[in-house]
């Protein structure tokens, strides 16, 4: 094929330059992000980016991490709190035990009890763990509530009926009489406790190098971000092509001389 024939296959120089200009302007921001994050990733170890943790609420929400509003909190012992986050129980922000949900609280001077559907968590007035007794070691299962009978003794309501616990929560016997059930009172969680709980549950946030890597690939913003970064990569290929085409169009070589 003659040189002039190659040149004729290309669009007009004005068109090529317009495409090049608009493509460059549109992709500029993303190209800058790609270049800067790429440079940072190349030197992330030297810069210590893997040792810096990002705890910003925006980043936490982008990674689907737990928020303060995800923590369910209940009042115990007048001024203490029992919190529940993703299957973990906390007393005043300190980890206590596993627990899918909280179905009842029984308070007393010696032993207080937090009931989950499949366990009784016994604690002291100060919140120290006494014992976790799961229902495989109890004569009942599927606990649904905790109450008291007319004598003030604790009653556990389960799928196998009501059961009365002794003062030390060691022996249980089936109970037939009247009893009252009270749902746990919701409470607000102090910020310091919320911080302790979130930190225990998910650490202090992802490493900065991980955030930069996910920004580089676009994964930080889900499939939309990934698609934008894919389009940016395609834009680089088109810019190279249109740049070379424009150069071929205007060079002397293209004129066949």
């Amino acid at each position, binding site marked *: 094929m003659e040189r002039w024939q190659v040149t004729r296959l290309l669009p007009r120089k004005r068109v090529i330059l317009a495409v090049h200009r608009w493509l460059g302007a549109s992709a500029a921001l993303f190209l800058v992000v790609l270049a800067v994050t790429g440079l940072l990733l190349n030197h992330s170890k030297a810069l210590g980016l893997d040792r810096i943790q990002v705890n910003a609420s925006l980043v936490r929400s982008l990674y689907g991490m737990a928020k303060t509003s995800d923590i369910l909190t209940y009042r115990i012992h007048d001024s203490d709190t029992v919190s529940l986050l993703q299957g973990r129980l906390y007393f005043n922000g300190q980890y206590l035990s596993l627990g899918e949900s909280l179905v009842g609280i029984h308070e007393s001077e010696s032993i207080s009890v937090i009931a989950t559907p499949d366990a009784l968590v016994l604690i002291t007035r100060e919140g120290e763990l006494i014992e976790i007794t799961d229902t*495989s*070691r109890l004569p009942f299962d599927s606990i649904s509530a905790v109450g008291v009978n007319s004598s003030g003794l604790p009653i556990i309501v389960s799928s196998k009926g009501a059961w009365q616990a002794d003062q030390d929560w060691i022996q249980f016997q089936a109970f037939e009489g009247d009893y009252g059930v009270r749902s746990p009172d919701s409470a607000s969680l102090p910020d310091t406790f919320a911080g302790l709980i979130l930190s225990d549950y998910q650490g202090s946030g992802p490493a900065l190098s991980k955030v930069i890597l996910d920004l580089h690939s676009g994964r930080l913003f889900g499939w939309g971000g990934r698609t934008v970064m894919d389009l940016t990569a395609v834009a680089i290929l088109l810019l190279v092509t249109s740049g070379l085409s424009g150069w071929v169009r205007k060079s002397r070589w293209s004129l066949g001389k």
Partner: protein
Amino acid sequence: MYRFPPVILFFLALVHTAVPSMGEEVYLEPDVFIEECLGASASQEVVWLTKDLKQELADILGRPFKGLRVRYWKNGDSTAWILEEIGKVELITAGFHVTDDSMQRMEVLIYRESHGWEVRYPFFSRQFRGLQLDNKMRLSKNIDGISGATLSVDAITRLSRAALYLHGKVASD
């Protein structure tokens, strides 16, 4: 060409039966274990842990013991303990039957790890029969390990020492 599918199916069936599914596997309910060991008349008791007792338990388990008391079942001179320990990442629940400071039976009751489930087999649990604690809190006999289940074997061994130790404490009270 029709010779391969049966071979592949046989291989898949073999793999399926050899590798148990992940998740909680209950081999024996704790209340059944207690009844088998102590009978229906066993009473439920607790041993309260003093500071020294907690320290001894922490030394045996190699980690701080969380909690102020341990529940157990008693019938005469025999006690039964349902104890839990982490193998690799999940809890293993095991039952121990002790009479006169001597282990009568060890049984893995609930297993939650994806590997190391071989500790539930009798060839392993039989080794615990007759074991006692020496004055250095060591088992009177070495427990043979299982290849690929080292962490689970270690966890069960630690728990058996804890059960013998706790039995000694409640028996002497």
